[in-house]
């Protein structure tokens, strides 16, 4: 409680007046209520990325979408309108703030060169360029147009794509589309395990 004028006066008054056993106390026992921290924050509706219950979450970020603010998450809570979780969240969903705002997040592309014992930074353009060359080289080296019985198969068995079970449908469609066009047959995701 900040040292309000009245407290100062009271302290001084009583100090000077000497003993008074039945001292009349003027300190207001004001209960300082913590203001509601999400009162003016921006509320974004999203879905928890963890399990397949698909709980609706509200992500509260600072600022009111004004141009000069980079939204940062201050709180994540359940979406009361979502018919499945009705505002509830499990211990993982309730701690999503620590998943969005996490010091361990990877922040830039890195590469480990053959034989090296450490990560090196790499620019995005160079990384994508190198990866594209690897893909083309591996595909061209091993592309099978006809199988042993001479039947058209057009497949590439030397590359694999794994992943995607916590990513969106649209991303997975894009992956299947691009990888099938490359002729990949090794295409798997967590549904398998």
């Amino acid at each position: 409680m900040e040292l309000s004028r009245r407290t100062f006066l009271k302290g001084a008054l009583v100090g000077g007046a000497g003993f008074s056993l039945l001292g009349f106390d003027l300190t207001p026992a004001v209960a300082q209520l913590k203001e509601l921290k999400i009162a003016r924050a921006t509320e974004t509706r999203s879905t928890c990325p963890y399990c397949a219950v698909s709980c609706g979450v509200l992500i509260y970020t600072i600022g009111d979408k004004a141009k000069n603010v980079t939204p940062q998450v201050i709180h994540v809570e359940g979406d009361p309108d979502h018919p499945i979780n009705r505002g509830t969240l499990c211990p993982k969903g309730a701690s999503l703030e620590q998943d969005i705002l996490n010091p361990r997040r990877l922040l830039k592309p890195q590469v480990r060169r053959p034989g090296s014992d450490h990560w090196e930074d790499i620019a995005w353009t160079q990384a994508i360029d190198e990866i594209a060359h690897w893909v083309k080289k591996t595909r061209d080296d091993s592309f099978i147009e006809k199988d042993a019985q001479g039947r058209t198969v057009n497949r590439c068995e030397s590359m694999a794509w794994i992943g995607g079970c916590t990513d969106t449908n649209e991303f997975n469609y894009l992956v299947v589309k691009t990888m099938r066009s490359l002729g990949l047959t090794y295409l798997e995701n967590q549904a398998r395990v």
Partner: protein
Amino acid sequence: MSVSHVISSRRTGDETEGRILRYTLSERVHHWLGAFTYCYCLITGLAFWSPYMFWLAALVGGGPTARFWHPWLGLAFTLSMFWMYKMWRRDMLTTDADRRWSRVMKYYVENEDEKLPPVGRFNYGQKLFFWLMFYGVILLLISGIGLWFVESIPWSLRWLRYLAVTVHVVAALATIGGFIIHVYMGTAMVRGGFTSIIRGEVSTVWAKTHHRLWYEQITKGTSAQK
């Protein structure tokens, strides 16, 4: 019994122009150290004791500061109490004279001291007060430690928490009772008592009337030795 002290080399009982040294400097210093720490603990203790006196804490720097210093000065008071015990232990032992004195204490209260048997260095009331404070401070120390670290008393021993509070309060009230009488006697009732603990000397007349045995012992002792 008396302790040679850098500031003053005089021993109790030295007689100069009708004044007798009753308390050496170190005895006085320790008395006043104890007095100050006790008063501080009293004020802050009373603040914690009753809402109506909580404003006292504001006097001495606010609740948290009061709560912070109360235990430490409590310890200081305990130390000074033990030190006083070391100094006055022998003088404070109750003698037969004290028992006879106590039976006729009524006269002391009614200021008819002459009907009382002669008194040594400390009369029985003072001795009672001393022992009251002594045992009081021990109880205060033990229960105080319990209060100071109440959160580390495990839940299974929670009766210790409650006992600590009660013992501390009862002991404190007892010492406050003694303290009131001690201050009253020391300042209002016995003229010269206050200066004796401040300056350390009393008039020989004072010594003869209040502490005849102590006076005779002191003057005979010194004359005999001289």
